[in-house]
């Protein structure tokens, strides 16, 4: 039973990893970022490339992927999202377009194949990342098995959630973000540079996706379409948790992870997935605003 709970916990932490970035972007800016999964994919590819070409370890790839995706997030915000604030469904379509562009760019190796240049590690092939020995040897405590890599993911997810919470509630920037969440126009009237804060929020969310990508690369297959399925899972968590609520996101990812883990153990993964969707539907019928939601004005 304990190992089933541990599996659920690890599933939940991966959900949290993906949903964290989505949640703050959606919560604070009202933007449905469909390119989030592709940013995860870019983060994973950064790890692959850093390992092949720079010999960096998985740990060193974490800040690198964060910076790469942060920069990419700034670009996406500047050229696409900025023009679409307040138009929820337009952001959905536009970022979906960005997602497709990113995916195809990786498939085409950024078009460099036209010049006959081949970047090892990029392109449509299957890739994987070497996990540091420290994290790859399973540890047995009696009968009980601990997978260090899964444990590492859980720790990183918690760490990221704590950092994000500190940023949101203990810094001036976070105060401004929360002010924008409550009432954008009023915040602007109070002298907050809404444009700049939004750009940084979006970039930070993208950076979180990059870190999620590094974590994914350690145990999943890295390929151009690895990200597309993640967005759906991410949004399930965001919607169940309650828009804009950090604690809600954490609770929802834990809950859905456990439901998935337990039913996968009892029956199989396909039925577990159906049950997860059933639970999500039930929750949003019962509480349309999500499990934990602040009172908006």
């Amino acid at each position, binding site marked *: 039973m304990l190992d089933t709970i541990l599996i659920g916990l690890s599933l939940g932490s991966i959900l949290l990893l993906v949903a964290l970035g989505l949640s703050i972007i959606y919560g604070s800016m009202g933007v449905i970022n469909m390119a989030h999964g592709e940013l995860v994919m870019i983060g994973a590819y950064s790890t692959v490339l850093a390992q092949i070409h720079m010999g960096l370890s998985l740990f060193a790839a974490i800040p690198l992927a964060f910076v790469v995706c942060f920069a990419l997030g700034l670009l996406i915000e500047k050229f696409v999202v900025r023009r679409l604030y307040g138009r929820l469904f337009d952001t959905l379509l536009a970022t979906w377009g960005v997602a497709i562009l990113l995916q195809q760019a990786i498939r085409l190796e950024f078009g460099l194949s036209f010049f006959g240049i081949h970047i090892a590690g990029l392109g449509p092939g*299957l890739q994987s990342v070497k996990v540091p020995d420290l994290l*790859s040897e399973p540890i047995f405590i009696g009968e009980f098995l601990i*997978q260090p890599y*899964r444990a590492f993911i859980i720790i990183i997810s918690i760490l990221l959630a704590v950092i994000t919470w500190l940023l949101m509630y203990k810094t001036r920037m976070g105060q401004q973000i929360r002010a924008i969440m409550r009432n954008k126009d009023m915040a602007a009237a109070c002298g907050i540079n809404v444009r700049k804060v939004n750009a940084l929020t979006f970039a930070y969310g993208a950076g979180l996706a990059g870190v999620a990508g590094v974590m994914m690369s350690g*145990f999943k297959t890295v390929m151009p*379409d*690895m990200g597309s399925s993640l967005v759906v899972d991410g949004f399930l968590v965001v919607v169940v948790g309650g828009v804009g609520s950090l604690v809600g996101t954490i609770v929802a990812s834990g809950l859905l992870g456990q439901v998935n883990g337990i039913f*996968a153990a009892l029956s199989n993964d*396909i039925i*577990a997935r159906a049950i997860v969707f059933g639970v999500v539907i039930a929750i949003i019928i019962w509480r349309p605003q999500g499990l934990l939601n602040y009172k908006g004005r």
Partner: protein
Amino acid sequence: MKFTNRISCKLKLGAFLGAVSLLTSGLTHAAKEIEVGVLFSQTGGLSIVEKSLASATLMAIEEINAKGGVNGMVIKPLVEDGASDPKTFNEKVSKLVIRDKVATIFGGYTSASRKAMLPVVEKRNSLLFYPTFYEGFECSKNVVYTGAAPNQQLNNYIPWLVKNLGKKKFFIVGSNYLYPKEMAKVAKTLIEENGAEWVGDEYLALGHSEWSSMVKKIKDSGADIVLSNVVGGSIISFYREYANQGISQKDIPIASTVTSEIEVAAMGGKFAAGSYTSFPYFQAVDTEANKAFIERYRAYTKDETAVTHHAMESAYSGVYLWAKAVSKADGIKPNEIMEATKGVSFDAASGTMTVSADNLHTSMTPRIVQWNEDARGTIVDEFSAPVIPLPYAAYGETAGNLFCSESGLDSSKL
């Protein structure tokens, strides 16, 4: 009104031009070139594998052309993209058959894409060369299967695993679609025939890459070997999770029918080391012919590290089998080529391949490989002679009792 008139006028003109080209095409083609379709996914999730099949096909065509073509005709490939989507395969094969009137189509990787192409080639009496190992259960007069049939992957494999490794309890995992389920059916019969048992069979959605629950289930099932029919990107996360949960390939090895050089290279040899795969061809086949083949392929793709694998070797050999058939055929209509294909054989890198006159499948030599730390395989067992293909092995077909023969499928035996 004017609009519809214009359309009907265009249609008439088109029909006229079509008729003219139909009358002349036989003459002009026979003089210079013979057109064939090459239909694999150049884009989408399956492009990883299918691009290698396309390059192997094109490489064979280029080689044959360099030697003067077939019967003095230059082979002209019309390359189309199936986009990893069965519906696109159906549309593209229709285009190749109906509009381009190609003599033959080389293409298809997944069973879904083959099933999408099948009605078109059968209805139009065209000819398809299908290079992938597949689940059997087909008896078409319009498809030449140059990949392994289930019996060529499993008939030596299961007995070998039971006898040589002493394994008694099989856990069968697969992706949730046709091929893995049919393969499981064949495997279950063989497992029971060999005095072993299967303790579970489970399937995951295609492309699924979260293996934690499944691997735990395998661990808890008491199985001493895993038979894997998992395909695509899921393979890598499966083997990795397997190692991460502390299962050793020594204790409970994974025996696969799909995991090829491509996936092993991608996951890293460490995770595959000690596991097994059964195919008629491996890069590890130790013959001069194979070494030369690998070198030519690497030169052709300009990739020093390119790996060769079973389906691509079959795609390559398929073109040669076809060329031999064309050179002895009376003409270049699909049914004339098809008739000439029967009994044709080719000395491929994997050994001699012969197209069976009965079911248009190809006889080939099954082999078993054990993967090493360095992502290479060691051949641990191989048949001494090519094995006759039996697409209905799951339903009791044997060499002495063919279900699919030249006169068609005897469905009373099913």
